[in-house]
Each structure stands twice: as structure tokens, then as C-alpha cells.
């Protein structure tokens, strides 16, 4: 009896090993794809960031000189500050509109599907189309501003994307117009998970609509809310499309962000090493955001 079992175990271990190894065959393609396209080039970037390289000649190792240059580059800091403004813009206005839209939607039954579809449509439209649409609408001579001026309401016929005072906010506005409907749907899904009896109690105690929103809805969807705030912060680091398409960082770097600065540095000014250094700092910023999130969570913050 004992002998029989032993021999079987021998067979099964060899068999099991082959079984487990064959499991990895299923995972291999997706892992290989990510290694080749994302992981290895990302690591190469760290090396390139320590070289002087035009992309054509041999890269020349220069240590941390690129980072030294970066610290003293006013345009780098300007771009970084624009990323911060961009993040704050997205953490406030679209989030507020998303919460408001979702809360109002959760209170109605009729036409709810229709509103959801309407809010979501800008989110599925390509950046190339959305930017074209708003470039027409905000054109100083044939857009909304010009039309308002004709009706006697002056002051809006300005070059939104051409003025250094408005370019960054104009682009952020267009991108958030495309984005906020997404938040409505995410928050609405979370609001349906909130215990209905909490609202019952609140209504019985005479809570107003705003009080219910503030004291029942917001705490109820807190995990989702915090998650979207985290995602917005992470997505704001590589912000690129809308800025590149509408202003290309201009005028005079007034709407430059790290993404556009890096892009122009590598593909138009051929300072590939310096561009890689900017990329490395962007990855570090993202890592910091994720790390802060993880640490706060470990410390018992309910996020």
C-alpha cells in the first residue's frame, strides 16, 4: 500500500511540474509583449537619460549632467507648474460636475438612460475631433465669442488658445469637457451601492437635498471618489493630446506641460538624452503619487 502511494507521488510530482510549467505558456505572450514595448524601453530610458544623444550619433555617457541642466531649466519648471495647475483643474471642476450630474441622475428615473448617453458621448470622441470642434467654437472671429459680440455682449471674442493668459485654461477646459461625463457614470454606479435606508433616515430627520449629498452620498461613495482622484493625478502627468493639438505648448511655453516639452525636445530638437531625463522625472512623479496613496492606505486611511 505504502509502496504504491510513493510511486504515484513520484509520477505526480513530475507530471505536476510539467503542468505548472505549461501554465506559463498561456501567460508568456502578454508578458513578452509588455517587456518588449514597455518595460525594457522604460529601463533603457534611464540609461539614455544619463547620456548626450541626438538619436543619430553614438550616445555619450555624461552621468547626471542632464538632471543638473533640468534643475536649472526655467521652462522645465514652468512646464511642471502647468502640470500642477492642470491636475488641480481636473481635481476640482470635472469632479464637481461629475458628482453633481451623478447625484441629480440618481434622483430621477425617467430619461436617465438618455442623459447618461448624452454625458458620455464627448468621452468617446477622438481628441483630433474634439479639438477641431472647440477650435471652431472658440475662434475669435467666427466662434461663440464673435457671435456674442454681435448680440452686444462684448469681451468674449478673444483668442483663447493664442493668448498666454488663457491658453492653458482653455485647453484644460476642452479636455475636461471631454472627460467629465465619464466621472458621472463612475460616480452614478457607486451611488447605487449606497444603502438606501441611510437616505430614508436622512429624509425622516429632515435633511435637505444638499445635506443628504454631503452627509450620505459623499461618505458612501468615498472609495470610488478617492480612486478617481488618484487616477486623475496619475493621468495628469502624461497629459499630451489636447495640448499638442490645440497650442503645442504655446504661445511662448504658456501652455507647455512636461509631455509636450519632452516630445518636442526629442523629436524636433533631437536632444534625446535630455528628453529621456524629463521622462524619468515624470515616472518618478507618478511613482510618488502611487507611493503616497499606498502609505496613506497603510496608515489606516479608509481610501
Amino acid at each position: 500500500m505504502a509502496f504504491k502511494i510513493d510511486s504515484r507521488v513520484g509520477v505526480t510530482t513530475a507530471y505536476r511540474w510539467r503542468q505548472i510549467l505549461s501554465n506559463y505558456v498561456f501567460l508568456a505572450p502578454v508578458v513578452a509583449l509588455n517587456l518588449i514595448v514597455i518595460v525594457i524601453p522604460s529601463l533603457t530610458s534611464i540609461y539614455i537619460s544619463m547620456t548626450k544623444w541626438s538619436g543619430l550619433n553614438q550616445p555619450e555617457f555624461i552621468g547626471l549632467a542632464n538632471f543638473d541642466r533640468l534643475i536649472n531649466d526655467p521652462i522645465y519648471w514652468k512646464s511642471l507648474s502647468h502640470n500642477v495647475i492642470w491636475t488641480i483643474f481636473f481635481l476640482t471642476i470635472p469632479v464637481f460636475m461629475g458628482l453633481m450630474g451623478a447625484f441629480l441622475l440618481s434622483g430621477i428615473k425617467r430619461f436617465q438612460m438618455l442623459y447618461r448617453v448624452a454625458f458620455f458621448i464627448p468621452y468617446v470622441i477622438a481628441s483630433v475631433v474634439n479639438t477641431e470642434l472647440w477650435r471652431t467654437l472658440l475662434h475669435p472671429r467666427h466662434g461663440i465669442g464673435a457671435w456674442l459680440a454681435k448680440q452686444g455682449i462684448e469681451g468674449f471674442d478673444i483668442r483663447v488658445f493664442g493668448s498666454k493668459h488663457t491658453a492653458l485654461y482653455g485647453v484644460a477646459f476642452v479636455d475636461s469637457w471631454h472627460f467629465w461625463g465619464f466621472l458621472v457614470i463612475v460616480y452614478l454606479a457607486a451611488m447605487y451601492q449606497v444603502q438606501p435606508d441611510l437616505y430614508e433616515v436622512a429624509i425622516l430627520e429632515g435633511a435637505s437635498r444638499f445635506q443628504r449629498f454631503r452627509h450620505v452620498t459623499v461618505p458612501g461613495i468615498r472609495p470610488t471618489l478617492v480612486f478617481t482622484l488618484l487616477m486623475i493625478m496619475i493621468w495628469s502627468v502624461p497629459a499630451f493630446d489636447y495640448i499638442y493639438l490645440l497650442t503645442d505648448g504655446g504661445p511662448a511655453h504658456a501652455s507647455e506641460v512636461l509631455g509636450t516639452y519632452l516630445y518636442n525636445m526629442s523629436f524636433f530638437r533631437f536632444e534625446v538624452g535630455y528628453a529621456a531625463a524629463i521622462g524619468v522625472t515624470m515616472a518618478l512623479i507618478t511613482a510618488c503619487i502611487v507611493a503616497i496613496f499606498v502609505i496613506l492606505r497603510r496608515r489606516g486611511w479608509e481610501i
Partner: protein
Amino acid sequence: MMRLRSGRTETTAFNHVILFLLALFALGPVLVLFLNSVKTSEQIAQNPFSIPAEPRWDNYTVAYERGNYANTVKNSAILTGGTVIGVLIVGGMGGYALAHLEIRGANIIAFYFLVGTAIPIQLYVVPLFFLWKNFGLLNTHLGLIIIYCATSSPFATYLIRSYMVALPKEFIEAAKIDGASKFQVMTQVILPLSWPGFLTTGLIVGLGVWNEFLIAVTFMHHPDLKPVATSLRAFQERFTRDWGLTNAASVIMLLPVLILFLLMQRRFIEGLTQGGMKM
């Protein structure tokens, strides 16, 4: 139910007023784009909101021809189709392994798929450009498809996995007892049961590829092989003053997406909010 019942005792008129205004804010600009696409530049300059008495449908035929849409739509179809097929195969296999097979370090890989989407593309786009140049993959559809497959694979694997995890284990056990191999279990048990996950993932990935700009503009410079997005950009720059024409060209790009979205909006919304990811 309680909430809805008590909600009804209050007036919902306020909700509808604000929601209507928000819907107008979301859709108004899109409607103006459609209106302006059948106008001349002069008509747009006079009043961007007017409804043209005689719609200039010509804008569409002119934009279609000068924008070389017959060609660019074909290119985008190749890129979108190739990526969707590729990522569903790769992501489907990966999702199956993570959901139902014994994988050591599965947590690490799942964590990578979660965090992988957070890596800013700018970190790897420059080395990737030179890598693709060496491989001869620059200015090829295959080169773009491989990148798109990779960038959307963490999301796809994760989403497909979440559908597969929800499948009852009994089906798989029963198939194994009947002597099915792992591959047979995947193709004959898992696949037929989790096709909604594949459909949703395919739609989201396809939408992302059709709309994608940064990778396309970086890795594809051959004018005959460009997708709709980057050639539309070139078209806009060529006809900056002809708003009617560029708006019509934009509508041509938008229309297939809009129709597909309206037909399958539940799947789109489900996939995009579940994945919680922006492409």
C-alpha cells in the same frame, strides 16, 4: 426602491432642469459641429449656430476625396482590427491563466497590470522609437499594431480575467474530468461562456485605437499608411480657413464611433467604467 419612492415625493423638476443644461453642454458643441459641417466658412463666420437653409453636402464628398478617406479608413480598419484580434488572443490567454491556472507570482503580474497603465508613455516612447527603427517596424502597420496590443494588454487582460473569474468552477472541473486539456478547456468551455467580456474588451480597445493620436503621429510618417486620426490632423492644417470642410472631415471620423456607441452603449459604458482607464 425606498429611495426612489421617497425621491418621488420631492419634485424632480430641479433635477431635470440642471441635467438638461448639462446635457446641452455635452451635446451642444457636437451638434454645432454637425451643423457647421454642411456650411461654408462665410456662413459659419456669420452665425456658428444657424441652421443652413441649403445644406452643403458637398463638404463631405470634397473632404472624403481630398482627405483621402478611402485609404485612411482602410488603414485605421487594419490597425483597429489587427489590434483587437491580437489583444483578445494575448489578453484572453493571459486572463485565463490568471483566473484559472496555478501561476506562481500571479499577484506580481496582476499588480503589474494594475500599475502598468500608470507608467507615463513618455518614459518609453523615445527608446521605443529607436528600437522600432532598428527592427524596421517604423512606418509599418505591424509596428503600430504591436505597440497598441502592448499598451492595451494590461487593461484587456485585467478585464477579461474579471469575467473569467466569475465563471462557475464546476464547468471547468467537469470538462477536466472528461479529459479535456487546458487548451481545450480554454477554447471549448471558457471562451463560449465569457464572450461578453471579449466583446466589451474588443469594443473599448477598438475605440482607443481608432481615436489614438500620440503613437500614430510618432511611429507612422508614411502618407499612404496613416490612420484617420493623424491624416485628419494634417487635413486640418492644410485647410485651416475652410471650417466647413474640416468640420465635415471630423464628422467622417466621428460617425462610425457614434453609431457603434449608440448601438452598444451599455457595453461601452460598462467596459470603460470597469476598466477605469483612459486610452
